[in-house]
């Protein structure tokens, strides 16, 4: 039966995240962007909401079950607060969920309980530097050698790489398939480069990474012999990014709406002019449409159905919607929209990233 009503548990979770986003995140978002640094306390508070433990089974220290629908509801709300904070708080999921999905029993027992403790940065390395990154034609390779795997290549946009203990590195294997390897950052052959300077999500630390003959035991290949289904991981990643895009778009749409109601020009609030009102109406429609596409894709994933089409379209649609909606937000504020003290230009910079972000989030 078709329904668009979240469960009571989901609603309570969203309310809790909203409080966090409003009271803890929004007040520091501007300064975090300017200083390119998010206060640790804000990340800790976000972590304590317990998103990941709530998605892990009891046997691994958690207290719940992972659902993509719950994940996208949470992601939207976090991103409504601030995208950089959302990505940083959720970063451990880049390891936790692939391990939950495909890890061997030993890998799950080893890693999953760590996500039920204090925040500790973990990350994944997927994107590669240069033009035309294609996840299905990665340049980073994993070669079998003397009962081990040897990783070679270069990665980029790896969040938290300088402090993460464990990095899940995606690499192309001999058969052309994509494998994932649990790498210890301290291992020989790994070099974390200088922190990247990005247009948006400036509070989140991202780094380039080079892998030069990094040796990994077979036990550290995610999924062991069976490996992973990279396409499925990508679907969850697409849905996560799409949900975050919806959150950013919604933040801008709501802000522009409130602003247009109080900004008086020509003796009336500008929202009473159709030129403005129609931008706001279109923004509201696009936010809702994108959210529904995210929900449908997440629902399909939760049903265990093939969802590549839905996840891809949701990702594409939400990325476009986020850009047009945040752009309209800047336009609604006019000159003020261009001033960094107002959040709309930050949301536009953040939104631009969704078309190319890869491997930055997971639900």
């Amino acid at each position, binding site marked *: 039966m078709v329904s668009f009503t979240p*469960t009571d548990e989901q609603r309570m979770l969203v309310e809790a995240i909203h409080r966090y986003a409003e009271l803890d995140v929004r007040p520091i978002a501007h300064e975090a962007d300017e200083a390119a640094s998010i206060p640790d306390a804000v990340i800790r508070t976000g972590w304590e909401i317990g998103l990941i433990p709530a998605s892990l089974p009891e046997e691994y220290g958690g207290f719940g079950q992972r659902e993509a629908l719950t994940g996208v509801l949470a992601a939207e709300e976090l991103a409504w607060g601030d995208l950089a904070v959302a990505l940083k708080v959720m970063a451990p999921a880049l390891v936790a969920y692939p391990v939950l999905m495909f890890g061997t029993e030993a890998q799950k027992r080893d890693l999953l309980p760590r996500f039920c403790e204090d925040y500790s940065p973990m990350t994944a390395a997927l994107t590669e530097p240069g033009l035309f990154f294609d996840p299905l034609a990665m340049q980073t390779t994993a070669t079998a050698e003397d009962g081990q795997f040897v990783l070679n290549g270069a990665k980029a946009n790896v969040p938290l790489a300088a402090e993460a203990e464990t990095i899940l590195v995606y690499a192309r294997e001999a058969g052309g398939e994509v494998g994932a390897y649990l790498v210890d950052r301290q291992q020989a052959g790994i070099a974390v480069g200088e922190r990247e300077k990005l247009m948006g999500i400036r509070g989140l630390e991202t780094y380039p990474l080079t892998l030069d003959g990094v040796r990994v035991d077979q036990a550290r290949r995610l999924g062991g012999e069976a490996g992973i289904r990279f396409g499925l991981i990508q679907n969850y990643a697409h849905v996560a990014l799409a949900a975050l895009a919806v959150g950013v778009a919604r933040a801008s749409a709501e802000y522009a709406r409130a602003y247009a109601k109080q900004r008086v020009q020509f003796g009336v609030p500008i929202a009473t002019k159709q030129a403005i009102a129609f931008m706001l109406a279109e923004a509201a429609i696009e936010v809702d449409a994108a959210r529904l596409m995210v929900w449908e894709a997440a629902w399909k994933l939760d049903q265990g159905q093939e969802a590549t089409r839905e996840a*891809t379209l949701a990702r594409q649609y939400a990325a476009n919607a986020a850009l047009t909606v945040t752009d309209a937000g800047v336009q609604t504020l006019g000159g003020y929209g261009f001033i960094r003290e107002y959040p709309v230009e930050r949301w536009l910079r953040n939104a631009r990233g969704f078309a190319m972000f890869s491997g930055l989030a997971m639900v």
Partner: protein
Amino acid sequence: MAISFEIPERVVQEQQMAMALAQGVMRPQARRLDEDEHARPVDFIQMIWPVLRDQQKRQLDKLLAPPDPNKPKREGPGITYLRMMVQVEALSWGDAGQYLCMPSALLAGSAIEAVGTPEQKERFLRRFAEGDDPKWGAMAMTEPNAGSDTKAIETTAVLDPETREWVLNGEKIFITGGGLALNESNGLVVVWATVDKSAGRAGMKPFVVEARTPGVIVTKAEIKHGIRASDTVAVSFQNARIPYDHLLGDPEVRAIDEGGTKGFKGAMATFDASRPLVAAGALGVGRAALEFVREKLIEAGIDIPYDRPYHKLSAIQRDVLEMEAQLKAAYLLTLRAISLLDHGQRNSLEASMAKAKAGKAVTWVTQKAVEILGMMGYNREWLAEKWMRDARINDIYEGTGQINLLIVARRILDYSSRELN
């Protein structure tokens, strides 16, 4: 509750049946009925009348059944509107013009259901639920000088105190199914007229005008850009006399001196159902065009991959992915508006969102389809150019895209129509 996109098995089956009709009966006639503009889709009407009649009978009987205190109230949401949505979408996929010739009470039925008394519902709607001959209902609101601005209507209804009849005078245009209702069946038209021009909306009342009423003259069958099989007429009312009890509604609706606008609001409330259904019709046309494009691309050896990055897609593949995304977005907004109806919840905002999005998306999708197909798209041998023309009306009727944006804007900004106009 939980978020779910599960379409019940029964609805899926009904959709398949509608698709069979669309494919087997409507598609073969689609081109001919487009070229021969005022011909009637006889096959479709004959096939679907018994089905619609029996559906309408069940609905009417349920509507008029006295409340049975022993019968437990049905738990949870219904599927009435979801069934309509998939049916409308499928039939429009077959041919949007023919679909609009569906023999049923259509918009007249919505108005009668919304504001008619039980006695009037029985009197006016029973014909759509019985008999071997198909009947049509229609709604006459638009006038040459009153399009989106419905309160500007000039058609008058004056009560003749001697005969206690209403005397109607004026011109109505763009009446879908008006010829079928008035001249080609024992149908009826709900006509909006003002009983007191100075009262504005409060003076606007709905009247039921029966087929073949003297002084009611179909003056023109329009020739149109698209949906050519659809019957769109102008009607002139020249001292047309209507029985007193053809004014729809309870005394509150009828009262003109109280300044009430319940009748008008009743009409507006029918948009909550009609707009998502118009959106559903748009989706059917869009899907037809998209499926055809994909089919032709596959024949030409071009697939549409979902796992490839932007730079590895051709311009055509990107276009098709965007067409698909736009259609899906419109579909989901429509599904939400429909689902709210089935849950018995207000949906005016969501209905206008769905209508605005679907009208625009499908217009773009079908125009793009013609472009991608090149001269094949432009050639009347195939249906792509027809779908483009058929799609265009969806951003116009039942509230233009702009009117629906205005409604969305008022609702999200919490503005009245006076504050934002």
